[in-house]
């Protein structure tokens, strides 16, 4: 049977601009190409700048992962200049980053991913009393009365009948791949709306420590928000109480709404536990240091590599094994298209070689994306919550083992189910529960130290550039919500001379490499993957969204031989 060429562009409900092309055959996907269609060149812009400003520049790589690049950048500079931050600053960064994970994962589930599984229109035919019974049976969350669900349903009905469907226009409502009963659809819609209010509240942790969200402020050497329990203008008891309440509300929503919804919805889509597995290598650099970042054993989520789905063996992670290829990307290397380069040696020269716009198809083109192809020891790797939870599980992390066991048991599936589209979505939920609980410990640590008289938030020993070596280089890493993130910096004469990021969505949205190996999106779309109706490619959205794509993060460039940015004169 002939293959059908299909383009899905724009992929919506993601960050940034992503184009997916596939070839469909007999109701399945036979081949796939992932193309990132935006390029900004931020790393090139950073050359010649003050390294203390780097966090602000890299933060603007992405407004969804807003604190992620800032913290990775701080760690790179602090590694290069051998700066040790105070314990309070480390804990505050964990609280800020932890809330970023929790909020980002919940927004992803309800506002970016849920509409792939929840049919809004079907919710209109639900019996609100039955929805109420389901809600009570899975959670103590108080918004669970039949009256409440009837009101939500009435709201949706009037909205639909208005004829102005807004963001719900042209959804794939009624698609045969939607399996939830109307009552569960109504539950999902109700919590979609509640989560909108919740996320706005809990993220204010960032505002207290960083002044705003998105894009809160950070500081090389610590945090700028001073602690003084006797001042109105600093972190004091009133601010700490506000933070503690947000942590409690975040945990309650995660445990009583997100987690029960996730498990309940997953129960209707068990076939997706054997779909979309794709690349079977997983990489986690680990996150949430509870001591200095250099003490890898102190990370709450451990570091490691899993190859060939072998959870029984967690291998050590070594950043020196990372290389990037441009064989199928719109760049060129001096040594040709077949070589891979480590980020410290990375060179990038953008060279678009695709067809003129408007495009019809990119499939068939040698080069088809602005993403490079990162490889670890020549292998493509999946990164993100699933990689972290597998590494944690394999490392004997008690919390991860308990929750993985719980979800597998309740779904009645074996561990192989984790290697799938559903597995990625479930792992995100498991991670959110773990972090929502751990936030309490970090908060307690902070309060305990303040109580003991330690209020330091900043180490200024290396603030002045005159204390820096003439040349230094550093590696800052972070396991961000979407996965392993690396920043590599070189500093010469007090200025940035080289900056390179290898980002989670670069790993996951990678094109093919010199050896022809597909990246994770592509491999997942061609792994036992259905596509019932090419006109309404709902299944593609499910698998792509299970990775939580972030395109602005994934595309970057640094030209090591580039033009110096500017001569900056200091007063």
């Amino acid at each position, binding site marked *: 049977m002939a293959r059908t060429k299909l383009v899905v562009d724009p992929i919506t409900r993601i960050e940034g601009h992503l184009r997916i092309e596939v070839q469909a055959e007999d109701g399945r996907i036979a081949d796939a190409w992932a193309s990132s269609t935006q390029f900004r060149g931020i790393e090139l812009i950073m050359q010649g700048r003050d390294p203390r400003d780097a966090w602000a520049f890299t933060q603007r790589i992405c407004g969804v992962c807003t604190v992620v690049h800032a913290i990775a950048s701080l760690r790179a500079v602090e590694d290069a200049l051998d700066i040790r931050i105070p314990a309070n600053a480390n804990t505050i960064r964990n609280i800020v980053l932890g809330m970023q994970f929790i909020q980002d994962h919940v927004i992803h589930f309800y506002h970016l991913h849920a509409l792939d599984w929840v049919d809004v229109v079907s919710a209109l035919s639900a019996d609100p009393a039955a929805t109420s019974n389901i809600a009570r049976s899975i959670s103590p969350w108080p918004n669970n009365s039949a009256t409440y669900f009837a009101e939500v349903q009435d709201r949706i009905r009037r909205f639909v009948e208005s004829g102005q469907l807004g963001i719900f226009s042209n959804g794939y409502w009624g698609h045969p791949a939607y399996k939830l009963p109307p009552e569960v659809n109504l539950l999902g819609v109700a919590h979609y709306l509640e989560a909108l209010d919740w996320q*706005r509240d809990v993220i204010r942790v960032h505002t207290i420590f960083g002044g705003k969200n998105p894009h809160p402020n950070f500081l090389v050497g610590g945090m700028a928000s001073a602690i003084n329990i006797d001042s109105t203008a600093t972190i004091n008891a009133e601010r700490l109480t506000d933070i503690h309440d947000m942590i409690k509300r975040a945990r309650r929503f995660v445990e009583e709404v997100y987690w029960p919804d996730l498990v309940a919805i997953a129960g209707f889509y068990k076939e997706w536990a054997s779909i979309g597995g794709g690349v079977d290598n997983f990489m986690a650099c680990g996150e949430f240091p509870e001591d200095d970042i250099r003490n890898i054993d102190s990370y709450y989520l451990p570091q490691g590599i899993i190859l060939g789905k072998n959870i029984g063996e967690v291998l050590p992670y070594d950043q020196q094994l990372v290389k990037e290829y441009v064989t199928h990307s719109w760049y060129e290397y001096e040594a040709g298209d077949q070589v891979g380069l480590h980020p410290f040696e990375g060179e990038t020269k953008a060279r678009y070689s695709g067809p003129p716009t408007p495009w019809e198809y990119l499939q068939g083109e040698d080069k088809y994306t602005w993403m490079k192809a990162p490889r670890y020891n020549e292998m493509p790797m999946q990164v993100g919550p699933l990689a972290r939870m597998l590494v944690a599980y394999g490392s004997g992390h008690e919390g991860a083992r308990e929750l993985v066991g719980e979800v597998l048991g309740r779904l009645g599936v074996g561990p192989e189910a984790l290697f799938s589209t559903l597995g990625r979505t479930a792992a995100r939920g498991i991670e959110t529960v773990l972090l929502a609980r751990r936030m309490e410990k970090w908060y307690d640590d902070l309060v305990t130290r303040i109580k003991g008289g330690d209020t330091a938030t900043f180490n200024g020993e290396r603030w002045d550039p005159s204390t820096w070596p003439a040349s230094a280089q550093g590696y800052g890493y972070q396991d961000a919500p979407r996965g392993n993130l690396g920043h590599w910096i070189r500093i010469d004469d007090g200025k940035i001379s080289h900056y390179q990021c290898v980002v989670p969505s670069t790993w996951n949205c990678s094109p093919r490499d010199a050896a022809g190996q597909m990246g994770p999106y592509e491999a997942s779309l061609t792994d036992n993957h259905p596509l019932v109706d090419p006109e309404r490619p709902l299944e593609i959205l499910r698998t792509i969204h299970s990775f939580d794509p972030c395109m602005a993060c994934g595309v970057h460039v640094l030209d090591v031989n580039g033009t110096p940015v*500017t001569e900056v004169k200091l007063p």
Partner: protein
Amino acid sequence: MLAPTSHPWTSDQTLAEHLEDRGVSRREFLDLCGKLTAMLGLASVVTPRMARALEQMRRPSVVWIQLQECTGCVESVIRTSEPSIGDLVLDTISLDFNHTLMAAAGHAAEAALHSAMEANAGQYILVVTGSVPLKDDGIYTTIAGRTAKEVLEEAASGAAAVIAVGACAHWGNIQASNPNPTGAVGVSDIIRDKPVVNIAGCPPISDVVTATVVHFLTFGRMPALDIDGRPMFAYGKRIHDQCQRRAHFDAGQFVDGFDDEGARKGWCLYRMGCKGPASFSPCPIFQWNVRTSWPIGAGHPCLGCTERRFWDTMTPFYERLPQVAGFGVERRVDVFGGALAIGVTAGVAAHAAATGIHRARQRKQLPVMQKPPQDAEVNRGQD
């Protein structure tokens, strides 16, 4: 805007009927209009007029396109902080296209965009986030196989009004900073045949976006703008002139190092590189995230993100504006701040006129300088 957060507003209802359904009394509605009036900096005499306009409206179509950007502005608006405004204003529009939130993808998404533009031709509000890369035929951002420039020009052609939200849409932002590898420009560099309102900031405060839309719907025109296209109700005053830490500046009480005694007492961050004296923004007044705090309130100097080319003109971020110690600092900062902003705002005199500083200067008959003094290191970065 984001979702039908309450009883949706149907097409056969006026706003008054809709609010009644939602249990909002006439008195509550007028109270809300009063708050909006205050936020927009209008005299209370216009409150009844605003109420009438809002009551008679039907849900207007809003098309939101996202070009070369990081999605931070969408995230900001999602966290819109004034509950009554969020409930009323955002819920009262029909958000017919928004890449981050819409259910449809691919052809179905494109179809939704085109049907909204056709059905509301000449009527819809176009919101744009992101810049437009022009270099190399615009290949650095494409959507559905077309360049950002083409997408913008088509979407703007039938718009009643264009609102450029965030520094990227305003002037190009970080990707337009030296050496601007992709040739990024702002919306107003492309759209010349209709007015473009610039909501400045990286990202902007969501309330400013909200209030601008309300202004348009209420009065049938955009708010008064400075010469950079920014609404005066939000960007009419300098941060320095509205700052809670201003008294410490005037008293000569400065933070000299992060986490020092001054930092722990909440003193002025000018010496740590604060760009508040050169930045026009409502941050100190509106604040961020349900008025929780703002950058200076959290102990970090202002980066100046509401000003054009701030990545080049305001960096290094931790270097102070022209270095002047001790007596006379206020005058120099004031002159420098105004001069830095000249050319991208309504000018020194117009802005400073509302400030106490300017009145003080008039009393002392100090000169208003039109360009920075030669000894100041103004020429940071290259334009």
